């Protein structure tokens, strides 16, 4: 996997900061006091040296958020979140909240790292152990060969005029682009979590692909190193100008731990005429222990606008982590002949809950969308597919195909399918298919009679069940995802 500019940026930021402060205690003072109010919003904006318009936008969002209620319609259940009990700015993360050594980390998590073949040093970083990331340059070298690889990578993109950087850097270096597009797909008033994100987002990625350019490599936020610094409120903006193409990878297969329980990211995609954006996610946040303790709440707003004619946005996601997932990557098919796709695998085990799906809004003529959602539930987990297909009156000849399959392992878990279909054009065609199945005893025995252990058999059968989705992932990601699918379900049978 190639390195990104973002990583280079991060490494530099951390090393510079260390150099500048010398003591971790002083870095600690970079922590905003607990709580959320207008001063905190101003504090974040000032820390990041933002222009006035952005501060205004944040404040508008914050004031709007105060008028909103936390949504309750999703089929998930969790104790009320105290929004005043968090720090909304910490750079880098406070050491005192971290585990002091690997001994303090959930042994299950460590066992998983071992199975994925992650070296000990990196395990510590992933688990957020205090001081583990202190020599990031070394760790980066271990992962990416050397920093020079990252530099070559960056140069290659620059030659093509591609911008790939952190959103903070984009705000500084390309304010006109950010101002034009940020909030144009997910307005600050969109929903409770997106609005909160708009007020307090700390960082994320920015991509701009110029007209006619095909991005020569997968852009990726995968970086194990990055993991320990990922913000609680990430904001990502990807713009593909006319006739361009980009494939973007988010996440990583190694389970990531974070002291911040709530993660509310916003991702906005914009595709102009004839442009294509392929966005792939492997989400494997800490799901909590087998009793459901700990674990991340992942409340994400992801939306893509197919603004131009013949544009295409394709979401592929493999969701195996988090205690609670609330996520509906969507496409607004505005340009005529534009295409939206959603391929999803959501695995829930133990006490995990996932309410995920998509929205396809057909506005332009002959717009097409495809939805393939595979939900796997094991243990006491609950998984819901929630999908909206809306065809507006002008969407002549629009088509949607939805296929929604659930697989249950054991009899204490649940799978639910909630399709919403609204068609206001008579020429549109909407098809929906749904199935629910259990892993059959016949299949398990057939595999075992050929020498496969029960766990390997489950892994194989589930991977087969997910194949249509996994084959949409870029090659190297797909291989890792397959391993992950099998590992996520270990201990779910027998």
């Amino acid at each position, binding site marked *: 996997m190639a390195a990104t500019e973002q990583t280079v940026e991060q490494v530099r930021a951390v090393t510079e900061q260390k150099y500048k402060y010398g003591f971790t205690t002083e870095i600690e003072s970079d922590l905003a006091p607990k709580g959320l109010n207008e001063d905190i919003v101003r504090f974040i904006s000032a820390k990041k040296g933002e222009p006035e318009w952005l501060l205004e936008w944040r404040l508008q969002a914050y004031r709007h958020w105060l008028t909103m209620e936390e949504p309750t319609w999703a089929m998930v259940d969790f104790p009320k979140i105290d929004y005043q009990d968090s720090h909304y700015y910490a750079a880098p993360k406070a050491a005192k909240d971290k585990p002091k050594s690997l001994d303090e980390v959930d042994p299950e998590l460590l066992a998983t790292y071992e199975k994925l073949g992650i070296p000990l040093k990196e395990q510590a970083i992933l688990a957020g152990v205090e001081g583990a990331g202190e020599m990031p340059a070394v760790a980066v070298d271990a992962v990416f060969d050397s920093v020079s690889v990252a530099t070559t990578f960056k140069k290659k993109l620059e030659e093509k005029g591609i911008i790939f950087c952190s959103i903070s850097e984009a705000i500084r270096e390309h304010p006109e682009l950010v101002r034009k597009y940020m909030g144009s797909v997910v307005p600050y008033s969109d929903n409770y979590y997106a609005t909160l994100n708009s007020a307090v987002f700390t960082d994320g990625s920015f991509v701009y692909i110029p007209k006619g350019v095909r991005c020569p490599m997968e852009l990726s936020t995968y970086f194990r190193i990055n993991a320990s610094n990922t913000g609680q409120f990430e904001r990502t903006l990807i713009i593909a100008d006319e006739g361009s193409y980009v494939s973007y990878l988010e996440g990583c297969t190694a389970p990531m731990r974070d002291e911040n329980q709530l993660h509310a990211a916003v991702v906005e995609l914009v595709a102009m005429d004839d442009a294509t954006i392929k966005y792939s996610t492997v989400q494997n946040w800490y799901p909590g222990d087998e009793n459901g303790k700990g674990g991340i709440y992942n409340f994400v707003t992801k939306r893509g606008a197919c603004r131009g004619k013949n544009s295409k946005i394709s979401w592929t996601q493999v969701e195996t982590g988090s205690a609670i997932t609330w996520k509906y990557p969507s496409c607004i098919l505005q340009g005529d002949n534009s295409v939206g796709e959603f391929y999803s695998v959501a695995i829930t085990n133990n006490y995990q809950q996932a309410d995920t799906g998509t929205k396809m809004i057909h506005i332009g003529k002959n717009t097409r969308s495809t939805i393939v959602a595979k939900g796997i539930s094991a243990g006491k987990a609950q998984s819901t597919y929630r999908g909206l297909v809306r065809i507006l009156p002008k969407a002549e000849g629009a088509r949607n195909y939805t296929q929604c399959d659930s697989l249950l392992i054991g009899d204490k878990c649940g799978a639910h399918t909630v399709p919403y279909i609204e068609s206001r054009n008579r020429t549109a065609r909407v098809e929906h298919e749904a199935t629910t199945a259990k892993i059959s*005893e016949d299949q398990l*025995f*057939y595999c075992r*009679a*050929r*020498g496969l252990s029960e766990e390997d058999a489950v892994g*194989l059968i589930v*991977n087969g*069940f997910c*194949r249509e989705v996994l084959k949409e992932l870029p090659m190297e990601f797909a291989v890792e995802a397959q391993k992950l699918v099998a590992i996520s379900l270990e201990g779910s049978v027998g």
Partner: protein
Amino acid sequence: MLEIKNLHATVDGKEILKGINLTINPGEVHAIMGPNGSGKSTLSYVLSGRDGYEVTEGSVTFQGKDLLAMEAEERAAEGVFLAFQYPVEIPGVSNTTFLKTALNAVRKHKGLPELDAMQFLKLIRAKAKALNMNDDMIKRAVNVGFSGGEKKRNDILQMAMLEPSFAILDETDSGLDIDALKLVADGVNSLRSPERSMLVITHYQRLLSYIVPDHVHVLAYGRIVRSGGKELALELEAKGYAEFGSPEAA
């Protein structure tokens, strides 16, 4: 090779096998014939370790080891193979992936190195060709959309790949036309060797003119009621199973 002593087994609390005794030596092919519902498939499941088939009495020794103490996958790795009466479909999993995973699991158990993708492909192509299976068939999902005959051939391909020392063929002939039957029988015969034993379960004599057994047994209502040479199959074909009584009598 295999020694079954006074084997009793129940399914859902109902006794199906009521004291089976059978010894199979290396290289021998034994046929088990019998009326429907006599317990032939049950015997094959008990030997291959399916959950839910409870042994209440007796013992089975396989190559000197206690077979009944092993999990299904251990038995497979030790060299027991069951060709299913109804091979199972696994959607989305290609035959090659399935077989590669299985073969490498078995090789690992035997302390052999895993085969890489190239070695494996070469091997499976050669074996498939012998069974008149084309590339398309080995790439397709396991048994999905296969005809009855294709499924059976697919199971024999798996056997050819895994090279078991003891194979149970449960009504492998059912659903096969005469050409497919010959192909399958050729495949099975090519695997006959002085080290490999087989238990061929069938309802009809037909298969046994292609796979000629050393011994034939009649299983009726949970017991072996008669044993003989290959000519016993012909006799049964002519007379049927009526003389072996009814379930009530058993």
